[in-house]
């Protein structure tokens, strides 16, 4: 688990660095999605909400298929107390970042926390299953650790806040 919880959600809306662009490419390539998809840099919590309230795309199913495959290799306990403490920390980080932008919507904050939690769960599962550092769940997790909220593929672009 990332040891710098204050970094989560700390870079929302800022310009993408070269390293982040590489992470996105590695993530998409690992999932078997078109790696050269252009990035859509989301600039606000409102835009992130509008986008993610649209229908879910095939990228989600691709991630879920990979999650199911990994669950055949390893199990992680969702009710583990240490893990749940981590999810609380992620909720706190989302709430702080939202408050800095004047956002107090508990649903949107929980959605952000849920996205981070899901990514952390996927990362935990990939590690437990012995996946290499280049695994797409590791790459997505790295984007979260760097303060981003990867939102997924919408149309022909990969959206990231």
């Amino acid at each position: 688990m990332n040891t710098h919880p204050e970094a989560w959600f700390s870079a929302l809306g800022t310009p993408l660095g070269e390293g982040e662009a590489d992470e996105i490419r590695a993530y998409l390539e690992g999932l078997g999605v078109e790696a050269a998809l252009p990035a859509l840099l989301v600039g606000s919590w409102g835009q992130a909400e509008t986008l993610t309230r649209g229908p879910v795309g095939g990228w989600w199913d691709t991630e879920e298929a990979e999650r199911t495959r990994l669950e055949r290799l390893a199990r992680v306990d969702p009710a583990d107390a240490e893990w749940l403490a981590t999810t609380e920390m992620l909720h706190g980080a989302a709430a702080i970042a939202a408050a800095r932008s004047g956002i107090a919507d508990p649903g949107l904050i929980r959605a952000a926390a849920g996205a981070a939690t899901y990514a952390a769960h996927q990362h935990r599962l990939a590690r437990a299953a012995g996946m290499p550092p280049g695994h797409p769940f590791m790459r997505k997790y790295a984007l979260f650790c760097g303060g981003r909220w990867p939102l997924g593929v919408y149309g022909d672009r990969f959206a990231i806040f």
Partner: protein
Amino acid sequence: MAAYPEVKTAEEFGKQPEEYQTAVKKILVSHAINELYGAQVFDEPAIKFAPTPYAKWLTCRVAMEEYHHHVRFKGLADEVGVPAERMDTKNKKPLNIFEFPLKSWEEFCVIKLLADLAEILQVEDLLHCSYVPLRNVARTTMPEEKFHAQFGRDFCTELIKTPEGKSRVQDAVNRYFPYLPHFFGAANSTNNALYRKYSLKQRKNEDMRADYLNRVKELLDSLGLDMPSLEAAA
């Protein structure tokens, strides 16, 4: 009935009558098990039914909160020496409300709308519990339970905007509601009498059920949905 004195710590708990200790342990086990079942059979599986990334992630967070409720109640139970196997869903038959086979997003939203309201009433009854650690967990848990019920209301409100959606939500209400009145336990329950004797709970099962049915009627009316007949729930 005079209020039973506050019991502030697990150490003080050990000095209470056997009957008091047994009663507290039953409540702790019940909540620990119910929170775990709810997360396992409804919240976590519902992620796949959610139609948007927003709803999926929000459901994921709600599932984690339900798991956390389990851990909080289990933590209290551990402190007073309840064996872990009593809180393992493999060893205890679930309440009937968890036997509903979840198959759609509409059903899940109705479960949050109606079952989490029932859970709110149960937790409300512990807000002045004589066992202070349990009271404190109830107070910590309450805001999240309220959010979960609001989650159900918000998504049901969205779904009923179309006639097809409203029909699916009403159908889910018709099929799930009959499970719920039993959630409050039998009238004239001896366990409930003990809980009230020791100021662990405040109300009779039948009074809570009546209050719940009134609140459900008000809630469904506000959404323009019909409340199924009580005969269906018998």
